[in-house]
């Protein structure tokens, strides 16, 4: 794109992706009431997910400073802990907690915009504490939620414009978390447009993690901390940029040496088509079932069929599952599942558990639970079929469904009804009915970590738009110390 030979870097026009994102981040926008309301629900949901993750020792061992006992003055808080950390490690920790059980909000085109929230909270808290220490004022939650809207928007819109984890690219889509984190953190730390572009450009010249750890049979726990790792690097680049590190404005387009040619197989990395507050309003929550996104409706169908089949388990001849094409490729897994990470990305496993128990929780993926021989027996009788109409519905941006249908046939020739779910629980088409479920999920998660009085305080605060928006960031994070 930019012909830069013989020019100083300062004169070079930055790549469009960088400037579009930087322009959006620096813009002082006032968002509609509906967006601010959904930002509050996003915060509620993600914080709940974070509190739930403390049930996993595999998750909590990633938390805290590298060396125990490290004291960081004005460090950012990590909800549910007593830690105060530098903003990069705090972004890692909070993101890791939010993401761990894969129960956080997702976007239609893949990825979880909630992966970016750890950065927003960590940097907002750090900036607020530094400011207070200097005699200034902490950020208000209203402002923090505006950053949340921006972060979700950049992440979701980039995800729609670029498919990174496809087989001919092979990179992990947490690259989008790194991009978002770098841009948002630079702005929050006081950076200007040029500094945001500098930070972003470091993301594009950076090493990009491979998607392999999400691909069966290689699936492993890195998929649960990869987003956190990306957030940490994004914040690091933001800190460097604030410290005066220069950027590489044509990091993407430089011929032969740039991101497009070296990492992206010569394909264009597209800028986000438009940036407003769309993602936060239409984000898809996971409210009932902690599963991979494509399995949400499958779990719901199976739960509906549970009462009809539980007495006739030994008579089942086959289980027919209809799904969209992407699911039929990504989460259609037979054979042994070696760990949690493999199981919560296997549609057959999820359907089997939901049929057997009438529900599915984060406990359903452990080794002991998976040892139940009935699960694999049911998996062996499942047939997954791609339903072309479902595929169209999933891919069509006007429809954006995530459909699944199931029917179970018995040896005597009888069969259950065919249960179909087009939009899963938590989809924006079902908001009115689902928001009480979201609040219930949050209350349940609060109960895992806090005493009744604090639960009530937190629930009360997060239920009131007005009160939440007025509260100071550092005070808010102090309430989450456990």
């Amino acid at each position, binding site marked *: 794109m930019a012909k830069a030979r013989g020019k100083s870097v300062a004169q070079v026009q930055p790549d469009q992706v960088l400037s579009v994102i930087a322009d959006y981040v620096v813009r002082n926008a006032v968002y509609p009431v509906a967006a601010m309301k959904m930002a509050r629900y996003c915060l509620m949901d993600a914080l709940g997910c974070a509190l739930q993750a403390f049930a996993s020792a595999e998750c909590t061992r990633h938390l805290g400073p590298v060396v125990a006992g490290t004291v960081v003055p004005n460090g950012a808080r990590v909800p549910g802990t007593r830690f105060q950390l530098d903003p990069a490690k705090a972004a890692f920790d909070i993101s890791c907690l939010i993401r761990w059980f894969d129960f956080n909000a997702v976007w239609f085109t893949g990825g979880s915009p909630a992966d970016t929230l750890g950065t927003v909270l960590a940097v907002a808290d750090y900036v607020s504490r530094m400011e207070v220490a200097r005699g200034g004022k902490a950020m208000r939650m209203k402002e923090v939620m505006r950053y949340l809207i921006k972060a979700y928007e950049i992440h979701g819109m980039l995800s729609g414009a670029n498919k990174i984890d496809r*087989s001919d690219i092979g990179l992990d889509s947490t690259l989008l978390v790194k991009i978002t984190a770098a841009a948002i953190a630079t702005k929050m730390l006081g950076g200007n447009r040029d500094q945001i572009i500098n930070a972003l450009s470091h993301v594009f010249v950076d090493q990009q993690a491979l998607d392999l750890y999400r691909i069966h049979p290689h699936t492993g726990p890195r998929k649960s901390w990869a987003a956190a790792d990306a957030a940490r690097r994004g914040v690091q680049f933001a800190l460097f940029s604030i410290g005066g590190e220069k950027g590489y404005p044509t990091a993407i387009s430089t011929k032969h040496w740039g991101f497009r040619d070296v990492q992206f197989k010569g394909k264009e990395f597209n800028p986000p088509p438009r940036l407003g507050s769309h993602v936060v309003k239409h984000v898809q929550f996971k409210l009932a079932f902690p599963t991979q996104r494509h399995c949400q409706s499958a779990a719901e169908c199976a739960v509906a069929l549970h009462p009809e089949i539980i007495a006739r388990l030994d008579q089942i001849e086959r289980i027919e599952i209809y799904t969209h094409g992407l699911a039929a490729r990504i989460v259609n897994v037979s*054979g042994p599942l070696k760990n949690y990470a493999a199981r919560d990305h296997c549609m057959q496993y999820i359907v089997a558990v939901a049929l057997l128990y009438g529900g599915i929780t984060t406990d359903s993926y452990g080794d002991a639970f998976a040892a139940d021989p009935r699960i694999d027996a049911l998996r062996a009788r499942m047939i997954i079929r791609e339903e072309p109409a479902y595929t169209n519905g999933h891919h069509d941006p006007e429809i954006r469904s995530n459909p699944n249908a199931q029917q179970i046939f018995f040896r005597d020739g009888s069969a259950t009804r065919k249960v179909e779910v087009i939009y899963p629980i938590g989809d924006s088409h079902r908001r009115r009915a689902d928001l009480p479920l979201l609040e219930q999920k949050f209350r349940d998660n609060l109960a895992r970590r806090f005493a009744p009085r604090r639960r009530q305080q937190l629930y009360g605060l997060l239920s009131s738009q007005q009160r939440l928006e007025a509260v100071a960031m550092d005070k808010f994070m102090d309430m989450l110390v456990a």
Partner: protein
Amino acid sequence: MNAKQPPVDRVLTRIADYVVNYRITSKSAYEMARYCLLDSLACALDAQRHPECRKMLGAVVPGTTVLGGARVPGTKFKLDPVKAAFDISTSIRWLGHNDTCFRKDSGHPSDGLGAIIAVADYLCRTRGQQRRKLNVKDVLSALIKVYEIQGQLLDNNDFTGLGLDSIAMVNVASSAVVTHMLGGSRDQVVNAMSNAWLDGVSLRLYRSGHNAGWRKAWAAGDAASRGVLHGLMAVRGEPGYPAALTTPVWGLSDVVMRGNPVVLDGPLGTHIVEHILFRVPFPAHFHTRTASECAFKFHRPLGRARRRREGLPLVDAKFQQSLRQSFSARRQKHICSVCSDYSSMKSLPFNRFMELFAVRARSHQAVVS
């Protein structure tokens, strides 16, 4: 899809076996390793006189205190081993006159040394369960191995030709050696390394033409700190991805190397350290005389063992010169007496060695030029 367990990549098992099982018997390897250590420290001390370098050093949040943290030579900092590795490797590499090997792809084996030094000092000083007593010889053993792994990987693979920065090999090599230093098993070495490979490889853009920027000077520190991070995770039980390199479509060869396999032929021993190229004499006027000219001029004399006799005194001179600019005369004398030869150095506890180069909090100004 069938869920067969993939076999472990041969490159991973070869490196892990070398790290865990190879016993270094070559006396000359240790002798050269000592020079490498002193040369690298000289580079680090020189670099710290530059504000652009100094700005990258220290804790992310000023005022952070780390219990038993690793020291950064030439500074007062005590940091967690991840950031210490960043700082030390960044300092060593900053001016680009640290030791070099010219292979299929060129690189600086001492780029990974920050990871080794940081972890060794941390292990000696930590109050946690990981505490270990390491002496200078233990560190030189780790140095030899980290040089060998990085050098041999550069010897066999061309990253530059693909637009990639071979600095990723610093991440891989240091993750392997650090895991072993932290008490990790062979499997844990494989796990750490596989995660380092899955980090991917950064672009070489920041080293080329008009795009060249400071990142080329701190990319080594960044890679070394990633290696330490993966080492720490592996010994805490983080699993690995045994077929990270060779898995069709999704492995490193196909995703990053455009189908070229990652090759590691030939024996792993002490070759790299014994044939290292030092960038001497100390380029006092390096602004006017480019490092590459120096390298070209002295490649042949110093690249060969039979010319070492002329080259090694220059390494000593470079070391002493850097001490003169950083420390009081008394300290210089003390350091030189301790570091005078291998036999006097080898059994010194490594934390005591690091104390020689630490700046006490009050006299931090000493390193300001």
